């Protein structure tokens, strides 16, 4: 790579960063997300993981169904466990599953979309047929069926979300690759003897990477909400409880009838705020990647 290309790339990165900084929604989303990432990473410092164990909670003499005034910051649940500890450790699982599932979704979607758009012809027709099928199959029931069959653990949940939510990314990227492919610089590179691998890596990918990033950021909320719903329906991993799992336990154990709002409000609020943060960041990135959107918003 020549230093000229390096310079240009650095300039682009600087421009994107500057545009992002000047967007109010982008900055708000990013700051809020940062807070939650810090909470998730610092979980061992903020909350004692042993508190998640009902035996430990009982032995340490926690009261049952204590409201926030009576015990700690957020009260306790039916098993005397601190809700604050569940919130902190749940943020870890929810964020991790959300991000990991998104990486899988975007990887599958990008590979299918780029191959389909770049190669064209029969492979394109074949891949698009499959994409259409996956688009038509209702997403949540498919995820439920897969998760029921595969069993309840974090990796299966990630896998299930990944294999069910890639089609829209694939379509979007295919369309973008089709337009990039027509551009003159691709023809120029090809006539200078560039192979397909070089074309994709050096000319196609850099031109769709903004779109991939924006799409990935907007896919995280879907991953997090799907994980929450699957966990709420009892398909979550019992050994690493997410925010969705907290909501399930609150619901199943009668927190609602008791009006134990401290048990189910924090987890739901956490999901809401994180999802909003990702949406704000994603919309900002989308506007930067596709300036036409800026005018209509």
């Amino acid at each position, binding site marked *: 790579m020549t230093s000229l290309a390096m310079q240009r790339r650095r300039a682009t990165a600087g421009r994107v960063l500057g545009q992002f900084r000047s967007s109010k929604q982008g900055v708000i989303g990013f700051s809020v997300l940062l807070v939650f990432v810090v909470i998730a990473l610092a979980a061992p410092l903020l909350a004692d993981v042993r508190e998640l164990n009902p035996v430990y909670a009982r032995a340490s003499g926690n009261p049952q169904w204590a409201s926030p005034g009576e015990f700690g910051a957020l009260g306790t649940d039916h098993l005397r466990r601190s809700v604050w500890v569940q919130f902190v450790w749940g943020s870890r699982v929810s964020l991790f599953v959300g991000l990991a599932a998104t990486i899988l979704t975007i990887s599958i979607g990008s590979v299918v979309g780029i191959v389909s758009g770049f190669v064209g012809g029969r492979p394109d027709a074949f891949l698009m047929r499959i994409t*259409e*099928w996956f688009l*038509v*199959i*209702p997403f*949540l*029931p*498919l995820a*439920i*069926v*897969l998760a*029921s*069959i*595969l069993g309840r653990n974090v990796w299966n949940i990630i896998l299930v979300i990944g294999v069910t939510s890639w089609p829209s990314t694939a379509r979007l990227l295919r369309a973008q690759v089709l337009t990039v492919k027509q551009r003159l610089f691709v023809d120029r590179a090809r006539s200078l003897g560039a192979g397909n691998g070089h074309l994709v890596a050096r000319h196609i990918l850099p031109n769709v990477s903004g779109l991939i990033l924006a799409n990935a950021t907007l896919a995280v*909320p879907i991953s997090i*909400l799907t994980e*929450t*719903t699957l966990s*709420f*329906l*009892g*398909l979550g991993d019992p050994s690493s409880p997410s925010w*969705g799992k907290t*909501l399930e336990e*609150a*619901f199943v154990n009668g927190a*609602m*009838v008791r*009006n134990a*709002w401290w048990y*189910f*409000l924090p987890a*739901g609020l956490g*999901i*809401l705020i994180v*999802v*909003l943060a990702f*949406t704000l960041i994603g919309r900002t990135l989308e506007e930067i990647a596709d300036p036409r959107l800026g005018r*209509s*918003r």
Partner: protein
Amino acid sequence: MLASEQPESRGRSHFILKKVLGSLLTLVFVLVFNFVLFRIVQSDPIGSLFRGRNVPAAKIAELRTAFGLDESLWVQFWAYVRQTFQLNFGISYQSRQPVWNEIVSAIPATVALVGISAVLSAVIGTIGGVIAAWRRNTWKDHAITSGTMVFYSMPDFWLGMILLVGFAVVLGWFPVGGMTDAGSTATGLALLLDRLHHIFLPALTLTLAYLGEYALVTRSSLLDVMGEDYLTVAKAKGLRDVVVRNRHAVPNALLPVVTLTAINFGFVLSGAIAVEAVFSWPGLGKATADAIRGPDLPMLQGLFLLFSAAVIFFNLLADVAYAWLDPRVERA
């Protein structure tokens, strides 16, 4: 005139035929997928039937033969397809009733709940989107846009939990769940009122959860239209603002909303799984949530097939409606 109509109608019927064939192919894919999922991935159906309990080997062998599990995969697949078209989805592990009967008895509750919510959210969401776009960057726009985004970003069942605790548990204005009062013998108008009383909170939850999508799509679609010259002309003619909006701008902005509505109707049957569970609403969603707990695999398999078939059918309907509304589709 006849000559000019001929190719157009042929193009249209050709388009529709193509879509029907595509849908059938998708249905075949779903059937194969369903078979693979439940017969191959789940390698030991007998084992999952007894789930760890001690069963004599002879009994297991007997059951394997009875269920046809010793036959080749092709024979099993053919049997599966035949049974599916006879609406035979097996026996539910939980209720010991035929899966199809269980499903049929749950359909009306879901269609009522999600149907009402789908219509309300489409109407309210579209109106909200029109107001937001027409009054862009005013406080109305900001309130509608951020309000819908908030509802769009929360788990729908969590919204239901909050509404249930607030309005049913604390205030006691609405029942905490179900479709009718327990032990109620009401008929006629009293029964209808009782049902409305029960459906209010779940329907409100789903309406709030869905309307964001309509509002956002309508808003951006109308904003695209608002730059068009014919609106400037309409205003220059001296037409009132309301007329410009309702007669000239909105009809042209509604096409994406129509598509969204049609596609969402396909998801009507499967749309409310967690919300139905929260409100113990006895529909397909609650049946799904209950089947997961088993897991009641025959039930899940039947529900999944039904949900997929519904989406395929409504997608086809959306394509056909599109072909009538927008004649340009034929050329695509």
